[in-house]
């Protein structure tokens, strides 16, 4: 634990924003990494450096800057490939966000493999970004969406999930790590899908920076995550897809960069991964994501996981001791995220109160309105950890929660 803390103090120095004072006096306690992670200095510097010294468009032209940009952009792809252990860099598509990645899969997977009446399985705890792209298919093409139940502990009910599968089920799209419960998906779900010849997309937005990702072990067909939640820039997202599927599915958007040959009456398409990257991509952002991955690898994913586990366990225990706080889900399968409510105090009040104490937590429905309805609440507060958080910060948070309750409930 001591070793972990030492490692950790050094880490804090790498994130310049952590020295910011809130309302000029309070030390920032950033517990909103699940919404977006802060950036280490090296990522910020490299973005500047890229624009100052190497920037041009990629995969177009042969001049020096074009080469330098292209090398860095493609290098980032290799880093992502290794980061999630994909078989080939052709399986890594850069998008603008995880949301775009899911929209891409929904549209092109439908085009190739589905028709009206076919079925999709989601769960009640999906983020809106893993709901609406599929709702579009339902509303436009008449596919059927089924929802897997969530257990009390905040996990997909695996038996119920399996019971939803029929010969018409073509794909399941599920969160790898819930942004409300912090629960990791049961590995059985992937094998059930495989056994039933159902494709599976895992939404890895919350897991990519907090678990060791191995898409081959996960047995998923698609895996998506965003750059900004993995200590990289916003504006860059990743889609991993199995090469044979990405080859079979049609392109998503048309434009420059995704073509083979264009005449006035026909077009052929580029090979992977360019086929899915129409238009000028987020070049510097991809590079920034690559640097963020290097940074995480240097710290060590295992070290990050251990540290966050310790924080989560400690915070869960401390919050559980407060009889006026309700935590959603239980403590066993929980990774870096805790959603809660203080009895009779709306999450907005909690969040505003904590804010003036310098503590940033998320308040609201977390883009999970169906789950909020399932829980019978309007909103919750959520704390979420990054590698830079400390046990001391959890103590500050706990004290602030007690003060918050005293302020509103006299």
């Amino acid at each position, binding site marked *: 634990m001591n070793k972990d803390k030492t490692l950790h103090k050094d880490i804090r120095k790498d994130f310049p924003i952590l020295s910011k004072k809130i*309302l000029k006096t309070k030390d920032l306690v950033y517990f909103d990494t699940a919404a977006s992670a802060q950036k280490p200095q090296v990522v910020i510097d490299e973005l500047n450096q890229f624009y100052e010294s190497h920037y041009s468009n990629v995969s177009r032209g042969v001049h020096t800057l074009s080469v330098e940009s292209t090398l860095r952009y493609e290098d980032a792809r290799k880093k992502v490939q290794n980061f999630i252990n994909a078989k080939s860099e052709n399986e890594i598509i850069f998008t603008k966000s995880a949301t775009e990645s899911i929209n891409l899969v929904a549209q092109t997977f439908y085009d190739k493999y589905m028709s009206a009446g076919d079925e999709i399985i989601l769960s009640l705890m999906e983020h809106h970004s893993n709901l609406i792209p599929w709702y579009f298919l339902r509303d436009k093409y008449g596919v059927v969406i089924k929802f897997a139940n969530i257990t009390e502990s905040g996990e997909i009910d695996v038996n119920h999930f399996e019971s939803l599968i029929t010969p018409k089920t073509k794909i399941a799209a599920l969160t790898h790590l819930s942004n409300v419960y912090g629960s990791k998906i049961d590995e059985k779900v992937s094998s059930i899908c495989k056994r039933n010849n159902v494709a599976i997309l895992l939404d890895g937005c919350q897991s990519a920076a907090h678990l060791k990702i191995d898409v081959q072990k996960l047995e998923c067909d698609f895996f998506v995550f965003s750059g900004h939640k993995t200590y990289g820039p916003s504006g860059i997202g990743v889609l991993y897809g199995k090469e044979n599927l990405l080859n079979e599915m049609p392109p998503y958007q048309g434009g420059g960069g995704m073509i083979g040959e264009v005449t006035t009456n026909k077009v052929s398409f580029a090979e992977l991964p360019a086929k899915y990257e129409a238009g000028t991509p987020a070049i510097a952002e991809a590079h920034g994501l690559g640097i963020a991955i290097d940074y995480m690898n240097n710290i060590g994913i295992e070290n990050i996981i251990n540290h966050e586990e310790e924080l989560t366990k400690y915070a869960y225990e401390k919050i559980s001791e407060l009889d006026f706080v309700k935590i959603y889900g239980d403590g066993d399968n929980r990774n870096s995220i805790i959603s809660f409510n203080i009895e009779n105090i*709306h*999450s*907005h*009040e909690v969040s*505003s*109160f904590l*804010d*003036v*104490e310098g503590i940033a937590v998320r*308040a*609201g*429905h977390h883009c999970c*309105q169906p789950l*909020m309805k399932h829980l019978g609440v*309007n*909103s919750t507060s959520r704390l979420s950890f990054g590698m830079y958080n400390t046990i001391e910060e959890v103590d500050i948070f706990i004290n602030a929660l007690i003060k918050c309750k005293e*302020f*509103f409930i006299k």
Partner: protein
Amino acid sequence: MNELLKELYQEIILDHGKEPRNFGECEIHNKSAHGHNPLCGDKVSLTLFVDDDDIIKDIKFSGEGCAISVASASLMTEKLKGKKLSFAEDMFKDFTDLVKGSEESLSIIDEDDSLYALKGVKDFPMRVKCATLAWHTFKNALKE
């Protein structure tokens, strides 16, 4: 205790947040609207009875939300009941100016006004929508 919080959560706000006035639905109404803050999920439903002389004879709200949004709705119904629509429109403008921090442009609301208690919202820009939800819903009800 932090001054900004004290300013935001004045006694009257906490009181109206906990025990909102005019909560429910008007028995007879000829105007209504639902308001929803998609960012946080807060909801408000408003019913009104406006007579032929454009007087708001009755106004009630229901819904769920934070103390700021509930208190604001409650104070709004108290303020608008019995008033002319034209007054209500002016009040809408004044109130939105108040919570956005443009105090100098107020024409009706002064320091003695109950709505003045929501002035503290200006220091919490993300909460402006909480405070104005009921008022925007009121505007929408008039459009019907």
